[in-house]
């Protein structure tokens, strides 16, 4: 599914009357503030607790603490690209903006779901650490065999 379908606030903007666009402008400013504010605290940090500056991340945080990876990987190990610094900053920038905007407007779905870009980042993260274990199984692939399909609960099992 295209990411835009899951980010209602992008589509909504198009349909809004001018007054609302002004309002949106205000919100944008506000969310930039949130972004900058949260950015220092979280998006550049590797500290998991920093992500839960936003209480909406609480379920993931709690589940991560109980999960198999709490001792070995923090949020950014899975949610930020490895290796390439530019990619890392780009992803963080996009996410920082998206999440701040969503947080400020309050317009996000009840149950969070990773965007396709972030899902891809995470898949790569699995491979980055587990390359030795999955060496044979993934080198066979002509395209990707999703790890999450079987290991859905690895990062943080917020689903039953």
């Amino acid at each position: 599914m295209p990411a835009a379908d899951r980010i209602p606030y992008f589509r909504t903007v198009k349909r809004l009357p001018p007054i609302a666009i002004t309002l949106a402008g205000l919100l944008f400013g506000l969310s930039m503030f949130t972004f900058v504010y949260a950015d220092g605290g979280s998006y550049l940090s590797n500290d998991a607790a920093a992500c839960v500056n936003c209480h909406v991340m609480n379920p993931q945080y709690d589940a991560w603490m109980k999960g198999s990876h709490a001792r070995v990987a923090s949020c950014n190990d899975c949610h930020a690209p490895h290796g390439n610094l530019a990619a890392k900053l780009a992803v963080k920038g996009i996410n920082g903006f998206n999440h701040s905007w969503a947080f400020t407007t309050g317009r996000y779905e009840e149950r969070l779901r990773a965007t396709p870009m972030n899902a891809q980042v995470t898949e790569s993260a699995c491979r980055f650490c587990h390359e030795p274990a999955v060496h044979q199984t993934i080198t066979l692939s002509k395209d990707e065999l999703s790890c999450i399909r079987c290991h859905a609960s690895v990062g943080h099992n917020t689903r039953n």
Partner: protein
Amino acid sequence: DIVEKKQEARNPFFRVTELTDTTESAEVWGQNFPFQYDSYLRTVDMERTRHGGSESVLRDPSEDDPREVTSQSKLDHLPALRRMWAGYAFATDFREERGHAYMLEDQIFTERQAVGQPGTCLNCHGSMVVPWLKAGDGDLIKGFEALNPLPYDSARAEVKHPISCIDCHDPETMQLQVTRPGFMEGIKALKASQGVQDYDVNRDASHTEMRTFVCGQCHVEYYFKGSEKRLTFPWARGTSVDSIYAYYADAGFKDWTHAETGAPMLKAQHPEFEMFSAGTHASAGVTCADCHMPYRRLGAQKVSDHHVRSPLLDVNASCMTCHRDSEEALMARAVTIQDRHAGLRDRALNALVDLIDDIVAAQQRGVDEAVLDQAREYQRKASFYVDFVEAENSTGFHADQEAARVLAESIDASRLGQRVLIR
């Protein structure tokens, strides 16, 4: 994208020996991939589950059939099958299927050979890539076309092994590959019916799909088309039982004539791929290999378990990566589905036997042929529908609601057949 690049860069396997498309023996491949080979060898094991697996039954070897062990007879387990298949070879010998290691010998020695089978049979019971390439002078399809119409015994002289690595893997890249022309053509026709033109499975399928498709090369409904006995998968209208039934109607095809009623019958064979595709696991993106070849840890590596078998023999390995219930709970849930299915299947078989009885009686009474033909058409349908889910070997598990739906339609057809006889 990044991931792909990285994968290309590294050389994945330590190759002790070079593999080519003439390397037939799994033992040679096993030098490069000992873990996979070891587990592949274990498909000789026989162990039964409540409804599946297989049980080893001792027998007196004879000259015709030197096997000392076979699996249990399904005809004895479900006597209604003999009535259902009256006049067809299946009514003489039909056994519970067992591991891949046995596929060639079980085919050679089944009593169903008595009627004289064509070379086509070998498609799914032997390692065919090398024999086909040989017979076709390097052209797989030509070889396929050459061996199909031969008498079974001449064709089999070319075949040395049951399924081997090369039937599923590209020897150079080790990628999964489809080697069966029947599947290539069948899936192409299926995709065309869905508006996708020129589908080439080895080019267009995703890796995840291939984890199902390699099994779909054999675990499917099929028939021998025309005098060339071309192996054909009847999917041009879709893979549901309804589409396949309609396909055979269009083709004017029948497998045999029922000995008791004279109805033009169809036999369904192991449509695991088709039924599974209609189920919940398929729609959730799960593949055959996920359950039947689960990854296993071997030191620091994980490898696919090539001991292909009933997942209920090791629920922990097969199911519990995705499901978090206890083993007992998962087993109980699977068995609940299977038991419910088995009960309904018995009901459908009873209804079919009732219909056969009624047609026989009506023939004796001298009921009008036109009316009898209507009843026979119902018999053909009822029989194919119940056979479709019974020949599907998961006892309903692969697609529980769909299997029950098919059984319901079978029951309806049997009973409607009884009704027309008595206007």
